């Protein structure tokens, strides 16, 4: 294992520039609150991996979506487990991202030079919510359907352009197959892609700026 990794890294060179970073002493005044971001990231990885597995069986079509989810739960080996992991990790991810945000806010770790990382974090937070919202529709059962009818319906309350917004979100006046495919694409392609890039930027800035000393 180590030898193979070293062989690759002699050519790839990811280790030497990170040596100082990885082996620096941890600041004295850290507490477990500083683990919240790391926990969120671990959950993000769990959501990503289990989601990539679910995509092998999930069928994003009006006619087959519900049945495919039933099949995952009842027939596919470990299907209920993988689906459960995806669901729980996703919910816990939202929770821990929020706790992490509270930590950063409470310790005023958003102050210069970390403003940009706060902004990046805000986008990540919104994307995490959006991921939860779009993912909720995918089982295509009654609960999912009506939750999305209500949720997207709020767009219509925006003054003047509300209806156009609604059509944009739903892909039509009603929640139907077009909405499902739209949400599917956002849920499995756009959000993971953009979130992963943002997280890379997030960690890059943590690395460059170091962790703030708390209050």
């Amino acid at each position: 294992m180590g030898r193979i990794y070293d062989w690759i890294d002699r050519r790839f060179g990811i280790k030497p520039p990170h040596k100082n970073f990885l082996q620096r002493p941890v600041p004295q005044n850290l507490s477990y609150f500083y683990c919240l971001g790391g926990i969120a990231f671990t959950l993000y990885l769990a959501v990503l991996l289990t989601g990539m597995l679910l995509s092998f069986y999930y069928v994003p079509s009006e006619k087959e979506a519900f049945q495919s989810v039933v099949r995952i739960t009842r027939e596919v080996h470990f299907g209920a487990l993988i689906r459960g992991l995806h669901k729980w990790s996703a919910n816990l991810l939202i929770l821990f991202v929020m706790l992490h945000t509270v930590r950063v806010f409470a310790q005023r770790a958003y102050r210069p030079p970390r403003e940009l990382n706060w902004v990046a974090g805000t986008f990540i937070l919104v994307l995490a919510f959006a991921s939860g919202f779009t993912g909720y529709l995918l089982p295509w059962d009654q609960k999912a359907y009506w939750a999305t009818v209500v949720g997207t319906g709020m767009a219509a309350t925006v003054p003047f352009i509300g209806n156009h917004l609604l059509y944009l979100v739903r892909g039509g006046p009603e929640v139907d197959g077009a909405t499902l495919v739209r949400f599917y694409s956002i849920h499995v392609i756009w959000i993971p892609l953009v979130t992963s890039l943002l997280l890379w930027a997030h960690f890059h800035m943590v690395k460059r700026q170091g962790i703030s000393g708390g209050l």
Partner: protein
Amino acid sequence: MGRFYQDTRRRFLKRLVKGGFTLLASLFGITAAGFLYPSEVKKRTTKFFYLLNEDDLPKEGVKKMELAYEHEQRAMVLRVFVVCNAGETFALSSVCSHLGCLVDWSRSKKRFLCPCHGGSYDIEGRVLSGPPPLPLTRIPLKMEGEKVFAGVKV
């Protein structure tokens, strides 16, 4: 005190973390492989479908047919050859036994020719040249009254 214990402690913790991750990754890998493996692999059985009427059987030579049938609500078409040679009537699948291209009957060469890698078979489906390892598959035929049915593995 100091160094020695710190070093062994460090090494121990490193191994613990590495071992933990390796265990976790392996568990996930096994679960993922199980998840991806199909939960039911159907046993294929031979089913008979209407092919043509007795009157339309060739008296001599090769007749190309499209056997149309339905399988799990999907319309399927299988190209088959109905052959009458030396008084014997039988049907051959057109699927080449090499890599599965569809062979065609050449009237002038009196052979089944595969377009892909030059495989050829005689009128009985026996390999004459090229890479095919096996003769063309015989398709069982069944008569019921005037009608001829062909057996397909579905």
